[in-house]
């Protein structure tokens, strides 16, 4: 009895040391990851509870929740939160809708489908800053932009020499930012929905056709419910990224004309107002918001996997 217990214990010890021998080589990487990703967050968290403004170095010290109170009550910050929500919701919904339409079109067989699909994906592969610059200068610019150029061409076609030349960015700033983001995010949504469409069980569709359903009814009763989880997934993943968007706002409008979203406001608070405490608190608010959305995203992903395996 005792001997067997003793051998069991020494076995445990052996196994534990073997486990550690296997893990040890991974430790440097783990420590590096923690230092690079977790420490800055911890520091941000600490700073968010401090009064720390570079212009008033004497007042530095802990202030509890004051920064959070200011983030949530400050008019600027509240506007930024509203803008963020509006921007995210619009971009996600419109790009989901466009992505769905394109995915449905690409789900049919036609010559050159592979080439068209690749071309449809390219906007997503463009570096975000480059895409924003492209929209700002090559498309929206009132003097030499493509949009106004096209308007001029169309007006000429009908013999008019005085085409309207709107200044897109200053007349509809938020819509301009949204357009650029929608252009970039539609391919992402399309890819997710196309994967969903191609995972549709064919026999179920055939059964529905035999049961008398036409194309619209098949979409309404079979395809759409099947795609629901993919739509949720696309919406949530898109939200995570667009909530944090900085490039488009910074490049196209520099946060002016009511387009400053939370990340941009944080940037301003940090680099222009040098109010590190308040910027950190706002950053933490963004992180919390993102974590909430991400939790839902993960839940959707895991329910998708459950479905796949139970089939």
């Amino acid at each position: 009895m005792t001997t067997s217990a003793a051998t069991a214990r020494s076995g445990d010890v052996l196994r534990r040391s073997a486990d550690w021998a296997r893990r040890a080589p991974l430790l440097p990487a783990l420590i590096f990851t923690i230092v690079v990703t977790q420490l800055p967050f911890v520091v941000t968290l600490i700073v968010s509870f401090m009064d720390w403004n570079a212009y008033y170095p004497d007042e530095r010290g802990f202030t509890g929740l004051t920064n959070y109170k200011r983030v949530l009550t400050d008019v600027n910050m509240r506007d930024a939160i509203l803008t963020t929500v509006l921007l995210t919701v619009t971009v996600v919904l419109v790009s989901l809708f466009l992505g769905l339409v394109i995915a449905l079109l690409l789900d049919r067989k036609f010559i050159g489908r592979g080439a068209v699909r690749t071309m449809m994906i390219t906007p997503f592969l463009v570096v975000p800053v480059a895409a924003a610059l492209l929209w700002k200068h090559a498309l929206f610019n009132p003097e030499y932009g493509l949009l106004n150029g096209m308007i001029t061409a169309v007006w000429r076609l009908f013999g008019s020499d005085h085409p309207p030349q709107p200044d897109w960015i200053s007349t509809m700033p938020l819509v301009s930012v949204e357009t650029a983001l929608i252009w970039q995010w539609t391919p992402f949504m399309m890819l997710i929905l196309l994967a969903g469409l191609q995972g549709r069980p064919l026999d179920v569709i055939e059964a529905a056709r035999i049961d008398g359903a036409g194309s619209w009814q098949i979409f309404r009763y079979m395809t759409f419910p099947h795609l629901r989880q993919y739509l949720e997934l696309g919406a949530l993943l898109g939200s995570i990224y667009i909530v944090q968007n900085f490039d488009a706002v910074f490049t196209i409008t520099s946060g002016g004309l009511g387009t400053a979203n939370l990340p941009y406001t944080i940037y301003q608070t940090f680099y222009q107002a040098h109010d590190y405490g308040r910027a950190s608190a706002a950053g933490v608010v963004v992180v919390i918001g993102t974590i909430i959305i991400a939790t839902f995203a993960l839940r959707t992903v895991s329910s998708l996997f459950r479905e796949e395996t139970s089939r």
Partner: protein
Amino acid sequence: MASVTYDKASRIYPGAERPAVDALDLDIADGEFLVLVGPSGCGKSTSLRMLAGLEEVNHGQIRIGDRDVTHLAPKDRDIAMVFQSYALYPHMTVAQNMGFALKIAGRSKEEITSRVAEAAKILDLQSHLDRKPKALSGGQRQRVAMGRAIVRSPQVFLMDEPLSNLDAKLRVQTRTQIAALQRRLGTTTVYVTHDQVEAMTMGDRVAVLKDGILAQCDTPLRLYQQPASVFVAGFIGSPGMNIAEFKLDGTDAVLGQARVHLASATLTALAEEGADRIVVGFRPESVDLVTENDPDAFPVTVAVVEELGSDAFLHGWHSDLPRGDGTGNGQIIARVDPNHTPAKGSRVYLRIQPGKGHFFSVTTAQRLPS
């Protein structure tokens, strides 16, 4: 309800050299239960899907009743289909699954509910109406698939191997239930299976397909007693018929010491063909265990005896033929009395019962008159 006619219907898949279904001619009477049977890849599913409208008909016609449905969409054919995979709608409850076709047809809520309840009662599904297919057993899913078909009271039921995902016992049980249900509803049914026992027990008539061509279509009994070709003879029956090539010797066909007497009609047909060989088939139950002195007895070495309780089957080989020889490898299966089975490895004498042989041409593999 209606009859179904395949009129020289062919299906050639794009890129295939050979039609998957080749000029299929079938007349299925109103209310008949027709089984399509054949080995894997012979075109059973394709034939059924052509009738369903899921597969294009490249040549010929298909009619339901007097209606030419060859180019109609599935939804306009008034048929219901049970898939091998059941193809239940995963996000709908059992009741919604069964009522879907009626809902699409724009029937009232009350009518849908009552017809679904009626079907659920027939299929013993009442207590599962609110469940999703995921939460059902294989047998229950199968019944939901059946329910989805019968709720509609269509002109024709199509079933593609609906029992192949069930375990052996449930399959036998469900087989009888489906046959009984069909008799009760009197709906014309086309049923696909690769299991010849299923085909024989369920069908009013059985159509045997081979490589996309109809080999024979007849009642189960006539298929068994009068197979039209070597293929049908070998396919129908379990264990299979003994089939071997015999030499012609006067008015007899002989293989080693085995000897069968040929009728004059058979001999005339052979003479016309100019053949000196003939394919002879005999069922395991058409063989008697006899003594060495019997005039037509031939020696057989016993390899194994399969005892099934009610029956026993002797598997052996002709002792006087070289083993592994071309002619059916000299292998033979015979039904013997389960109470007096010969020992393994022993030598016994068998005799083919007179008049129980099936005779086929060596060149065409078709049945010869007898």
